[in-house]
């Protein structure tokens, strides 16, 4: 029982103290899991994080669910998940439903108008950080080509973004990787990739 309570506390704290979405809560999860409760060491934690990043979807819930499962089975998974997700969802519901009650008040309408350009800027900043990550990960040329292709498919041809990303993912898995082959050659070992 103590273990489940600790799991709840660890993920509740990291969820409630982390602003800026799941990725920014990861250092807090690390602090709880590796520092406070010592369920994992640094290396295990970064392994789990690296694996989580090879899969799609929100990172905070993947980490919470997996770490909970690893230390206390299915029930641990559920406890960690609830602690991560539920408190902030309930806060969100309380805040927005009370906000919506005063929808027709002119001051509240002014509030909702002012907030649109602000989230615009936040989304713009996020766009910029993803562009930078794309440049770091793929380089100018490949990144640029993929950027133009994505633009054409999503904006000009109006294809469903899920399909565009799905095709990119399949391409990444299936297409041969020339650069890596050379590296494998240099290292002098072939792993049949």
């Amino acid at each position, binding site marked *: 029982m103590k273990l489940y309570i600790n799991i709840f506390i660890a993920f509740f704290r990291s*969820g409630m103290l982390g602003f800026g979405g799941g990725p920014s809560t990861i250092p807090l999860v690390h602090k709880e899991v590796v520092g406070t409760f010592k369920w994992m060491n640094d290396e295990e934690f970064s392994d789990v994080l690296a694996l*989580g990043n*090879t899969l*799609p979807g929100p990172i905070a819930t993947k980490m919470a669910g997996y770490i909970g499962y690893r230390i206390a089975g299915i029930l641990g998974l559920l406890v960690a998940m609830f602690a991560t997700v539920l408190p902030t969802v309930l806060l969100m519901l309380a805040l927005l439903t009370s906000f919506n009650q005063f929808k027709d008040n002119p001051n509240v309408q*002014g509030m909702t108008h002012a907030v*649109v350009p602000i989230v615009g800027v936040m*989304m713009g900043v996020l*766009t910029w950080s*993803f562009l930078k990550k794309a440049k770091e990960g793929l380089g100018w040329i490949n990144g640029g080509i993929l950027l133009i292709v994505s633009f054409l498919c999503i904006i000009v041809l109006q294809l469903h973004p899920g399909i565009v990303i799905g095709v990119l993912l399949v391409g990444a898995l299936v297409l041969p990787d020339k650069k890596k082959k050379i590296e494998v050659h240099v290292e002098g070992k072939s792993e049949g990739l």
Partner: protein
Amino acid sequence: MIYLHIFLAFLIPGIVGYGGGPATIPLIEHEVVTHYGWMTTSQFSEVLALGNSLPGPIATKMAGYIGFEVGGVFGAIVALFATVAPSLLLMVLLLSLIYRYKDSPRVKRLSKVVLPAVAILMGTLTFDFFYESYSSIGLWETFFIGILTLFILEKWKVHPAFVIVGGLVFGAIFLA
């Protein structure tokens, strides 16, 4: 039927969105605003703004709230399940398999190859938000709030939650 739609609307962003919750926001917007028409861009931006002013993962806050708006408590549960379960199941069930291939260049480039597409989606959403703001409060007001926000956020590194609260106060006084 509505629950099936809610499930699909949050399943797709959850399984194609690489880069954590924030990367799934434009995909959620595409389903919720463009595809199913459950909300307008302006309503979506309000939800996102208030979501950003609260702690915790953003994808689940969005899913929980939008699911609730569209289909009540059960809608919220369905949306949360669709957001969280697929990738978590993959992680728990396939861990040993992923572990074996984690250094494979193909697996490594999975998360990189989608970055430009996600950036395009985010850029579109950014444009939509500014266009929405331009239509409702006008060019100069949008420009003024935008520039001010950029400085406060990026130059003076003020916490986003405070920026949003500041924006709400500003709007209540000057845009009413």
